């Protein structure tokens, strides 16, 4: 018997970008076609959610529905009109990963209070939201909640999934406060394991 050579050649492979995440709160940007190889782009816009409480209703507990200055109704996932801007704020994104190490987590960090120029304040916990999506049924990935004036979990995105919800904000209006414009910024962060 003639001995067989044991040679073989090896090609090593690895993922160039093992993890990719995209988060869009309000308006966002995408390059190319959303459902055929499109890629996310940066968008520095910070949308505003606001309400003007009539003087006669300040602090009377009548919930005030808030509105946004967002124009993002269509999802970059499939171009479907998923949200109803400006009444709703689009919250969505995706998480790509080659490793089965769990889901990405979306958190929101809010300050303890909204404040006006005179230093008066309204607890951020006066603002809450409901969650829905056009033609959507079942649980939302980013469900209803109330800001807690700290960092809180908004929801998760499973590996290699796109998740999206539309948030409708409301102001509880249960505090009698001085007149003025009260502002505060919420920062949303998507973190991968």
């Amino acid at each position, binding site marked *: 018997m003639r001995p067989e*050579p044991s040679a073989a050649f090896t090609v090593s492979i690895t*993922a160039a970008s093992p993890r990719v995440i995209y988060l869009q709160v309000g308006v966002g940007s995408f390059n190319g076609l959303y*459902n055929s*190889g499109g890629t996310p782009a940066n968008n520095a816009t910070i949308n505003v959610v606001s309400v003007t409480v009539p003087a006669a209703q300040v602090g009377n507990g009548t919930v005030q529905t808030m509105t946004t200055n967002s124009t993002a109704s269509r999802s970059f996932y499939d171009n479907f009109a998923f949200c109803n801007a400006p009444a709703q704020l689009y919250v969505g994104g995706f998480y790509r990963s080659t490793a089965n190490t769990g889901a990405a987590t979306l958190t929101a960090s809010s300050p303890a209070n909204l404040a006006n120029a005179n230093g008066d304040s309204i607890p951020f916990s006066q603002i809450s939201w409901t969650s829905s999506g056009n033609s959507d049924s079942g649980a939302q990935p980013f469900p209803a909640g109330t800001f807690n004036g700290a960092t809180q979990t908004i929801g998760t995105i499973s590996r*290699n999934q796109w998740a999206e919800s539309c948030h409708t904000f409301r102001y509880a209006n249960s505090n009698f406060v001085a007149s003025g414009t009260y502002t505060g910024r919420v920062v949303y962060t998507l973190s991968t394991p």
Partner: protein
Amino acid sequence: MRALATATLAALVAAVLLAAPSAVAATHRVDDSGTLPNESTALLRWRQTAPSRTRDDMLEGATAVAVRLNLAPWVERDASLFLVFPQQDSAATRVRWTTQGRLLPGEIAPGDRVLVYRGRITSPVLEETLTLRIEADGNRLSRVQHLNFHFEIDTD
């Protein structure tokens, strides 16, 4: 002395038979020890950056391999050369390749054996460049993986 000479002759005949491939049809592993990938590691990218309704979680990328096959034992023989991609624990699901013309292009999946040449072996060394396009399951490529290939020859 006669007995010793006979034994020596028998040993020589045996040595000659060992040095040449069998005249009957057979499959042999080809010495491809001179074959080298152009890159140490091929980088695969998401075919679709964003997850989509089609659930396309595939990665893909390309790399070249400089193939050098030692065909000396089969010169002037009619033969068929095959690329073999044994079953292995890897994320790769399919590899397609193009060539410069000395070998056939094609595609291969784990467990397959694909014809790359049929005809007379005219040279002791065959050199070719394969450009591989590799597809892999993005759910299973969390670390560097090594794909093992080899060549086999069937003599007619």
